[in-house]
């Protein structure tokens, strides 16, 4: 393939990609953001990194206190 053909091929790809993108349906930002917010709210209860564990003892990564002597 010569340089001209390569350039043409490249430009064809760019146009092809843009045609594809121009054809996709879009939704208003306000609606999308509301859905993101809704997902946060619906799952807030389960978010341990925000809410913490119901009881601190449930945390499997926490060093268990108490008996340190063997």
């Amino acid at each position, binding site marked *: 393939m010569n340089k001209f053909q390569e350039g043409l091929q490249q430009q064809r790809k760019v*146009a092809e990609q843009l045609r594809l993108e121009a054809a996709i349906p879009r939704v208003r*930002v306000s609606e999308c953001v509301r859905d993101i917010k809704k997902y946060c709210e619906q799952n807030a209860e389960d978010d341990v990194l925000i809410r913490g564990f119901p009881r601190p003892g449930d945390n499997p990564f926490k060093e268990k206190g108490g008996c340190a002597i063997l």
Partner: protein
Amino acid sequence: MATEALRIDGSQDTVDALSAEAANLKKKLEEEKAKLADMDMGEVTKKIENMTQFNMKARKVLKGHHGKVLCMDWSKDKRHIVSSSQDGKMLVWDAFTTNKEHAVTMPTTWVMACSYGPTGDVVACGGLDNKCTIYPLCMDDDPATKKRAVATHTSYLSCCTFTTSDKQILTGSGDSTCALWDVESGQLIQSFHGHAGDVMSIDLSPSETGNMFVSGGCDKVANVWDMRTGECVQMFEGHDSDINSVRFYPSGDAFATGSDDATCRLFDLRADREVNCYKKESLIFGCNSVDFSVSGRLLFGGYNDYTVNIWDVLKGHRVSILYAHENRVSCLGVSPDGTALCTGSWDYTLKIWA
């Protein structure tokens, strides 16, 4: 029909005509996107309460690497972690006890990618060897005896992730492509061409109907791909420098990026545009890795200034900062049940925050 064919084969198909068409389409796309940007994320989330103080502490320190930690991944069992390092080692940890359960020495330094298989029975890694190698995990045997090279790129492996089973693995590479491989046969199933620079990060869509993944790279662009066709279905621009990390929002409707331009951004697939940018004037160091808390409310970013910044995804503020490590935070990940955050650093350690 005849005129249509003539148009495509003839006058339309010249570099000039195609360039003009591309410019025109670009302008139209921008106008269309601007029209749909009817509201700021801040406006929609104004009335939400600010987050109250939450209490994340370093609970465990995983010590054992003799080089910069470059990548980590959680097992689905929410307990085990695989990590890879510049020293050529891949380690499998029990994060509850900090014990090392497996150690694999790679024939290369800079093991930049590692991933846990969904069943927990297998891990994959690679780096400067340009390959992705699979290691079955078995208590009786050294994993290295059963290793299998699956994927080969023409440049370094930057990231890898199993799909919904242990049977397929998706890879990203410095050769600017992504590829989907059959683990059993090592056959290439699909390759993904479109990035104009090194691919740095990939993430699979969490939505079941998805069959999609997102990739980010040194061309500052994030691409969304259809895994079945190999087609790039959406492109997202906006960053001023390399995109180091991409991660889907838990609903699958959006994804976050972390970049060398010191910002993290949220891109929405349906709006087809950026919907929020997480930055601060005082923050000038690049972000290497991002992940969400399970509800999607928090975005964790690991930065070159040794910190983890925690952003309120909805309101756009920084809600907390973890002085996490003594060198760059190179990778991070929230455990599958959302109970802990793991960070990996160039200070040779990983830490568990919960």
